[in-house]
């Protein structure tokens, strides 16, 4: 079963610019699970897009070279037909679903390929059974968690019964548990003999499942590893290749120096918030001190974001108090003092250039301008200062969002999943900046399920479950954090 993919001398560039892919040669055997990894911009996504046909059809550019599917040139198959042979799962659970209900979504491919009504129903039921989502068929997709949505994405591809699956960072927006469940589904596809190509940063959930790991950089495949080899990769190698640590137990951890207790900046006292029947915050109490970087961990839906929004003054608490520098505060006062940076960066960028982004909203004075330029330099964004914020990469946008918080002198900064989708290098850059900010006296709360990131910069962790704090501890032992974050 499965199909062979043969890539020969594949090159691609977006409209004459730098080559995204440079003479790639690759052979994928039937039933193999291949992982494409590497720093952002290395060409992983581009390669998946050439295979599923989005390049050059949807993303224009110059393509040369050949891809063969079971010996036949793939270019002979029009893009709209490729879905029969190649199933796809994309990164964002908010924007890859066409229908509003689960059943309709799973049926989408079948409908498009002209299956009869009876066959559509058959295939939909079959796919739902195999992916084990028969109980949510009538549910509205917008009401499902991201983890469930990605299951629906696989089911939708599965219903057309392709032999090859191509996935582009499918776990980027998923929490730890959902990521492992997704991995199990990939395992299931492998057992059925399907060929799977996954472009990914996070490798830990594919250990033991993938056959080969191909590291790309600057449009070329630079290294190839087996499962064993990648587990035992040295830290130097990981850095060199710009990867995330594959086996999280091997994370090189430098214990943070235990800080002397500094000034208490904020204190939450018995904070409570309910949304209808769901308790998002149940008597949350903890304090934050100047210079601390606190990781807020816990599985999705347990109220982490809610606590952030309560602190920032975006939602009103049902009961309890939030004290800043010892004084109880009202919601309105906290806006601007507690700076909440949401996960989606596109919704919070308003300017037409980096400078404008930092200056807009208040009068432009020479002092503010100087400060803005200084911040941009500190964040390492001087080289892109004239660009429009919407054209920045994920890592750059994250740093820009931090820059805005700095412009407004927010003493407390809360970041919601700042590293989802970031490669190793960018994650380290963000981590470095956060540490600098902490040294300057800010308190930083990081809501995250990225263990590597938490270990890179956080000194303390608070675990939230069902709206309650279950653990509040200093990070000393990486294994402890990995366990509490459901990685082990």
């Amino acid at each position, binding site marked *: 079963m499965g199909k062979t993919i043969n890539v020969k001398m594949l090159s691609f560039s977006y409209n004459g610019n730098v080559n995204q892919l440079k003479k790639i040669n690759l052979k994928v055997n039937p039933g193999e699970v291949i992982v494409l990894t590497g720093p952002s911009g290395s060409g992983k996504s581009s390669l998946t897009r050439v295979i599923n046909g989005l390049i050059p059809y*949807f993303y224009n550019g110059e393509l040369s070279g050949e891809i063969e599917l079971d010996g036949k040139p793939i270019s002979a198959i029009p893009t709209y037909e490729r879905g029969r042979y190649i199933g796809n799962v994309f990164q964002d659970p908010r924007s890859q679903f066409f229908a509003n209900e689960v059943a309709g979504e799973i049926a989408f491919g079948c409908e498009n390929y002209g299956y009869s009504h009876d066959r559509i129903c058959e295939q939909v039921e079959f796919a739902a059974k195999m992916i084990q989502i028969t109980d949510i068929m009538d549910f509205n997709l917008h009401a499902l968690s991201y983890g469930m949505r990605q299951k629906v994405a696989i089911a939708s591809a599965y219903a057309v019964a392709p032999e090859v699956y191509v996935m582009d960072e499918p776990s980027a927006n998923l929490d730890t548990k959902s990521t492992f469940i997704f991995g199990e589904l990939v395992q299931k596809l492998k057992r059925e003999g399907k060929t799977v190509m996954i472009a990914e940063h996070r490798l830990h959930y594919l250990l033991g499942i993938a056959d080969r790991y191909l590291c790309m950089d600057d449009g070329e495949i630079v290294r190839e590893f087996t499962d064993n080899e990648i587990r035992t990769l040295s830290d130097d190698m990981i850095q060199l290749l710009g990867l995330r640590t594959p086996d999280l137990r091997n994370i090189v951890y430098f214990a943070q120096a235990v800080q002397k207790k500094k000034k208490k900046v904020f204190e939450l006292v018995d904070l409570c918030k309910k949304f209808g029947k769901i308790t998002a915050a149940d008597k949350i109490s903890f304090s934050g001190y100047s210079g601390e970087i606190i990781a807020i961990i816990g599985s999705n839906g347990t109220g982490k974001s809610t606590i952030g929004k309560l602190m920032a003054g975006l939602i009103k608490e049902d009961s309890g108090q939030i004290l800043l520098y010892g004084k109880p505060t009202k919601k309105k006062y906290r806006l601007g003092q507690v700076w909440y940076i949401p996960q989606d960066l596109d919704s919070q960028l308003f300017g*037409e250039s980096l400078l404008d982004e930092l200056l807009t909203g208040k009068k432009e004075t020479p002092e503010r301008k100087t400060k803005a330029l200084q911040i941009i330099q500190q964040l390492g964004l001087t080289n892109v200062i004239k660009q*429009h914020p*919407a*054209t920045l990469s994920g890592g750059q946008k994250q740093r820009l969002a931090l820059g805005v918080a700095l412009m407004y002198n927010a003493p407390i900064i809360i970041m919601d999943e700042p590293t989802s989708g970031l490669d190793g290098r960018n994650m380290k850059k963000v981590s470095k900046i956060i540490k600098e900010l902490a040294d300057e006296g800010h308190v930083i709360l990081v809501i995250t399920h990225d263990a590597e990131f938490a270990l890179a910069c956080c000194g303390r962790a608070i675990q939230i479950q069902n709206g309650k704090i279950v653990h509040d501890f200093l990070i000393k032992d990486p294994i402890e954090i990995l366990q509490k974050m459901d990685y082990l």
Partner: protein
Amino acid sequence: MEKIVVMTKAKFGIRDIMTAAAMIVLCVAVNMIIGTITLPVPILYLYFSAGMEGFLGAVFYLVVANRINKHGLLLIWSTIFGLIQLISGYAFMLPYFVLLGALAELIMIGENSYRKPVRNAIGWGVYTAGMFIGIAVPLWWAWDSYSEMALNSGFTVQTLDMQLNMVKSPGLMILGSVISLVLAVLGIMFGQRLLRKHFQKAGVV
């Protein structure tokens, strides 16, 4: 070497449909907000809502127009709004909106017209003025029909003073169209600025 932008002769592709749908939804959302705010003051609603909707919606229209640059956009846009009217109580206006769209398309005949600010201003202005008439006429009919209905039910003419005479007159109809046109053109100017500053600069259009 001169770069010639050729208007694609192709029909609406899937990407064009998605872009148009997304922007039209934003436009509809804005329209609903304006409608809800102005409805309690019927004079405001009657004479200004179309213009305000034309002002705020212009930027969304410009984004689609510049991105896809294909004929048929205003026809589709107008027809969709006609269909929305269909389930809001004015089903009989659908043919009017289709014709309005066709008229707007006539204005946009020519190469690359959907990327030219002046053409867009005229096309969108005519469309907005047409929207005003499309709101005003059924509204008048609604009020007249209610008056007649109330008379038949036993109200007397004196008690039936509903300010209707204040609000209805051919002169005011022309005034309303002019207001709508002006607001729409201003909207295009504002939208054009946003387009240049953001969307064209970022390359999404």
